[in-house]
């Protein structure tokens, strides 16, 4: 079983003493440091262009890691994480756009010409005034915490409300699907205030630093890596805690967990909120890296794609999600550069193959090379 981050194998006595570990188990124990080294060393070997691509892929590792938590450990299949990725992405975009409108000289010239202080796309759409819900994003002290808090709140309410009513797995998946569809539709439809299908782009500076400045790209990459590692550490902490065990119990026997005295809805709501925060951070970083917030990352298709990143890495492996995101992201780039038409075949087949034959993803493959001994091995989906 793809136990990427839970207890290593061997017999465990009550006081926690562990038996001897195999090499793969050592690999798993140090998965995060190994990844850290890889990610920090790689910039030395990549061109700036390729580094940017890697940074972009890493942004998708955030929602993927969240999906490992809610799906692998919690049994909740969310087909709408794009919603939270999009929230983070757009909130960052709003902040950056307003910053550029007020600070950038060419933007200022433009606004003087049009006689208004609004972001360019609003001016083009004849929007008269800044909508009230844009206003707070003038300030970093609002925008940055909002990226964390708003998705967490929305996610918790959404999940808790549904799970309190004991809405089942498939139903909830469809609800998440619908929500991400709604969000994409609304964003595209309300062009004047959201940038519509083109999204929000054209940022000049962030927190006073210009995007064009020397070494900025590298610094952004490092920041992304650090945040990703932090997210992985948090995820691993959750999984190893008692809460993680309770989640697994809820996943496998939710009814019984009630009779152990727990309210499953609270736990599911909590972990769903965590995943939402991860996705939101990823979205915000994406906007910083790529300079764009777009509805094409919000709807059904991108949301379900995020699931495949987690599935490829191994749905029980938080670190695996990073490898999954990078591998699939790289594949996407490869296909779009060389065989555009075959991308859908590839990813469609990937879904089918991973689900049918590799339910534990790459982490599971790794496991097959270990002797699992007393702890058993059943490849449980």
């Amino acid at each position, binding site marked *: *079983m793809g136990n990427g981050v839970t*207890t290593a194998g*061997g*017999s*465990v*006595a*009550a*006081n926690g003493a562990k038996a001897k570990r195999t090499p793969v188990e050592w690999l798993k124990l140090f998965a995060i440091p190994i990844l850290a080294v890889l990610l920090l060393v790689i910039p030395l070997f990549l061109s700036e262009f390729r580094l940017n691509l890697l940074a972009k892929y890493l942004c998708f590792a955030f929602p993927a890691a969240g999906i490992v938590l809610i799906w692998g450990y919690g049994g909740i299949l969310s087909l709408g994480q794009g919603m939270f990725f999009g929230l983070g992405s757009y909130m960052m975009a709003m902040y950056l756009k307003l910053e550029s409108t007020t600070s950038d000289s060419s933007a200022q010239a433009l606004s003087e010409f049009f006689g208004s202080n609004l972001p360019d796309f609003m001016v083009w759409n004849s929007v008269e005034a800044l909508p009230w819900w844009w206003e707070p994003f003038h300030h970093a002290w609002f925008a940055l915490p909002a990226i964390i808090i708003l998705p967490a709140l929305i996610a918790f309410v959404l999940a808790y409300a549904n799970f309190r009513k004991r809405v089942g797995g498939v139903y909830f998946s469809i609800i998440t699907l619908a929500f991400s569809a709604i969000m994409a539709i609304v964003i595209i439809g309300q062009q004047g205030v959201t940038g519509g299908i083109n999204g929000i782009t054209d940022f000049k500076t962030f927190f006073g630093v210009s995007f064009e400045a020397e070494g900025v790209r590298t610094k952004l990459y490092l920041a992304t890596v650090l945040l990703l590692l932090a997210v992985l550490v948090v995820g691993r902490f*959750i999984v190893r*805690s*008692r*809460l993680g*065990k*309770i989640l*697994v*119990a809820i996943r*496998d*026997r939710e*009814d*019984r967990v*009630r*009779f*152990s*005295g*727990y*309210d499953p809805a*609270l*736990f599911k709501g*909590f972990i769903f909120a965590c995943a939402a925060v991860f996705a939101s951070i990823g979205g915000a970083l994406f906007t910083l890296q790529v300079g764009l917030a777009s509805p094409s990352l919000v709807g059904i298709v991108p949301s379900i794609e995020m699931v495949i990143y987690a599935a490829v890495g191994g749905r029980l492996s938080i670190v695996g999600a990073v490898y999954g995101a990078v591998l699939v992201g790289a594949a996407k780039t490869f296909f779009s550069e060389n065989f555009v038409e075959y991308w859908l075949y590839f990813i469609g087949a990937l879904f089918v193959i991973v689900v049918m034959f590799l339910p534990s993803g790459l982490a599971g493959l790794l496991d097959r090379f270990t002797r699992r001994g*007393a*702890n*058993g091995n*059943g490849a*449980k989906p």
Partner: protein
Amino acid sequence: MNELILSVEDLTVSFDGFKAVDNLNFYVEQDELRVVIGPNGAGKTTLLDMICGKTKPSSGTIRFKNRYLHNMIEYQITRAGVGRKFQNPSVYEDLTVLENLDISYPKKRSVLGSLFFRRGSEIVGKIEAVAEQIYLRDQLGTKAGLLSHGQKQWLEIGMLLMQDPELMLLDEPVAGMSAREREQTADLLKRISKGRSMVVIEHDMAFVKMIAHKVTVLHQGRMIAEGTMEQVQADERVIDVYLGH
């Protein structure tokens, strides 16, 4: 005469017109070990389902100590001090025996509490003691899914012991067990019933004789006899219903 820990009055539940339990009155004293027997479909499991909150009664009341259970939901009833063991062993297959017992510990059941929970020596001691009692001391690191059927039953009883409920509801604790395992389970139940009230559903009459203080016989959702094992076995109606069992 001890105080009543459980009072079930006029309890009825019907599923699409079929009355699984029909105006049942059922009283359990403190520290009593009551066994409920009856032919299949008599409503025994349904009775336990309603007490622990799995099924909602159509009418009637269930009183546990000074609380009314029929309006509460499962986890609240559990926290109030009622523990349930199911007919089919319900353990967390993907977690180890240790972890199964750990999460049954009745403290820190909130989200934050469980997130930052540290397994201290107190709980480790309790886990080891319980594991000893349920004959699984050497299996603490084994995944529950790998245990034998009988061992899973014991594990589930162990999980209940961790919870330390005042009222234990056991549904066919020896189903599928060998003769030796049944003896061991009888010992176990006798040990853990000290200072606890228990309601046990069983079919194995020899086993019932080993453990029961008092026996209630249900048939078609109603009680048809109650008393010691000898009294009940001699009761005409019971003989009728069991066809010479």
